[in-house]
């Protein structure tokens, strides 16, 4: 009797959702069976994209977890990081500095060290920029209504984009990116794996582990968790909340900076508006995984990467963004707090 009543109330919606899921599973499995090589290639491509998104979405999720602000400027900080690495490589040949300092280094190791140098430079620039933005634009609005901070974030995003588009900054043209190391592609039974993909995955995992260690083990990580949990009480307990917030912004931006270099290496074309779409999708991934949760952002990004690449491959290239956003809406409907988020209790 009870079951019949539940069916009457919820059955139709469940049927609809399961039907959609079954349809998606059917499409995927059919393609897996008919052409496994292509399928695994897509999955690999999706992993590459997903790990880049992961690096960006961590910044969104940490900032949202602490100040409840959708930091729209994050994607543009990502863009600045990519441009900084471009100038470092193409104008100042930073990737060749190790070879110049230490003579007789093998070209592989030198390129490796040079890339690390470029990534570190990009991370530092992004952190500095994010700290400045936080101090100038967001900090004065800490006690203002949340919408004011949101509009400010949109304003900062516009400013970074259009200022960067000026002739004497980065110009508004497409720029071809010069990779700091040559591309190598390995063919494993028809599935092509490039060294770029491996570098992206390894770097992203290293950064995730470091971040998890910072948040779990260090004092500042503890302060971050405390601030995220209850800001006023954290302040009462003697935590320098402003410092923690600035640190969070800097940390998130550093990850985005690293992500930007990897993204530019993988998709070597730059434009000042390049941060918008990856930023947006990384944000969606953070929401998907449960905003405020670091593992959630990571898993969400991987799902987002797969969803984008698989829907581009098997459904429609041009509609892939629409499909990604439809998935977001559906996940929100089933689990509003995201996959790993904690449900927000209703306060009276």
């Amino acid at each position: 009797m009870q079951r019949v009543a539940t069916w009457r109330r919820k059955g139709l919606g469940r049927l609809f959702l399961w039907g959609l899921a079954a349809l998606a599973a059917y499409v995927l499995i059919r393609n897996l069976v008919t052409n496994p090589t292509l399928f695994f290639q897509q999955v690999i491509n999706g992993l590459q994209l997903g790990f880049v998104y992961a690096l960006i979405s961590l910044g969104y999720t940490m900032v949202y977890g602490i100040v409840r602000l959708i930091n729209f400027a994050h994607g543009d900080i990502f863009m600045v990081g990519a441009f900084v690495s471009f100038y470092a490589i193409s104008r100042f040949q930073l990737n060749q500095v190790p070879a110049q300092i230490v003579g007789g280094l093998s070209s592989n190791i030198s390129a490796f060290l040079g890339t690390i140098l470029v990534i570190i430079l990009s991370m530092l620039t992004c952190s500095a920029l994010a700290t400045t933005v936080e101090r100038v634009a967001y900090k004065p609005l800490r006690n203002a209504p949340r919408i004011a901070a949101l509009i400010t974030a949109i304003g900062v995003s516009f400013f970074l984009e259009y200022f960067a588009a000026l002739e004497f900054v980065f110009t508004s043209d497409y720029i071809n990116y010069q990779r700091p190391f040559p591309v190598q592609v390995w063919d494993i039974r028809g599935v092509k794996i490039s060294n770029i993909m491996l570098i992206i995955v390894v770097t992203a995992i290293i950064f995730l582990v470091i971040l998890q260690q910072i948040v779990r083990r260090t004092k500042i990580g503890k302060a971050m968790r405390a601030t995220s949990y209850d800001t006023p009480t954290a302040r009462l307990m003697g935590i320098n909340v402003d410092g923690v917030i600035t640190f969070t912004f800097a940390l998130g931006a550093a990850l985005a900076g690293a992500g930007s270099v990897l993204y530019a290496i993988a998709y070597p074309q730059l434009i000042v508006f390049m941060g918008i779409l990856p930023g947006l999708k990384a944000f969606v991934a953070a929401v998907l995984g449960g905003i405020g949760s670091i593992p959630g952002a990571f898993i969400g990004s991987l799902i987002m990467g797969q969803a984008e690449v698989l829907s581009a491959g098997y459904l429609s290239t041009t509609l892939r963004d629409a499909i990604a956003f439809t998935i977001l809406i559906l996940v929100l409907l089933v689990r509003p707090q995201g996959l790993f988020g904690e449900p927000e209790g209703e306060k009276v």
Partner: protein
Amino acid sequence: MKRHVLGQDLRFWLLAIVVMLVAQGIFFLGDRDIPIFNLVGGPFAKRVIISACTISIVSLGLNLIYGFNGQFSLGQWGFYALGAYAAADVTYRWNIGDASGLVFVVLVVALLAVTYGLIGRLIRRSFGFMDEMSKFTLYLIGTAMAVVVSLILTRLLHGVVGAIFGILPATLSMQLVFLIATLAAAGLAAVFSYLFGQPVLKLGGDYFGIASWGLTMVMFVLANNADRVFPEMKGSRGMIGIPVVTDWPWAYLFLVLVALTMRNLLDSSHGRAVISIREDETAAKAMGIDTTQYKTLAFVIGSFFAGLAGSLYAHQEGFLHPSTFNFIKSFDPLIIIVFGGLGSITGTIVASFGWAMVLFYILPSILPAGGEGWRFVVYPLALLLIMLLRQQGLLGGTEWGFLKPTRWSLAKKLQSQTKATEKAADAQAGAGVLPPEVAR
């Protein structure tokens, strides 16, 4: 006896007509390049003013959803896109002698409204409570059925309707078709927002904002790929050949009607229910207000306005490109309503006009040649400054003139009366204790 139309007396409507005619006169003179007038009423200024009317209507809709009802929505731009493309398709087809678009849109809106009403009754009667997803599925099935039925009916009817409209003179029938297309496109946006709002409105807070933002993105992508279903929309190449019909009187008329409708709605008990949800949803629920219903109401009406404005925009430019509807531009109405003050109709209108004039008329004419790139550098800086200095917006929830709700003045009168009585009572009490000379 005074006759009131939309809550306004004869004097107001005369004034409104005079304002319209004066502006029309200025535009007329500006078009002839007469000095002074060409500065305020030249073709370019006119275009900016009409687009300010359009953006005001979108922003008013968003203000109803966010400013008055407290539902943070970024989906307004998606409904704007929907309205623009739907109306543009109708008049485009009409222009090449095909009435099917007109018939279909009107039929589908009418049928969907009826279907949704019936489904709502069915759910209340025989299911009692039903979760949002199941409701949504039912509505989706109903939508599919209504669309199929209206497609069939369109096949049968479009010849007849075309013939009937063909009797009218061409200019008149164009205006009439435009009016119907605008209302139908707005209705389509409203109906669609009802369907979308069924499951999504319950999310509340930021999650509703993000989900509705997803809708805007989806609409943008669909606009880019519209040529697969409707070849005349040309997808990412941009739709051309839309008849240019929106002129100052139309834009002005719709703006006045929308502002008055909103004022009257918010002045009613329904409006107070809508506002109470913004103030405290739990308390509103505890007071017996059906919060789901009123959230849907505000969302649907707000989207209706968005669709309406979309049609105005499409027929002003005569050209639609998906990049107009990308999600960066979707922040424009949000920025405007925060500028003007959340929960202020006057503020939204003032801010829209100020925003459009400064951004598209004053800044481009001040900036030196070759400095166009600086426009959007100055704009966010101004945005930051305003947010730092005045977070509550320009008017911060107050209204001017005829947009003031009547009950505000009533409440004020009551307040001042109580104060006067208290004062009088105090004075009396004081008079009793102290002799007049001492008191003085």
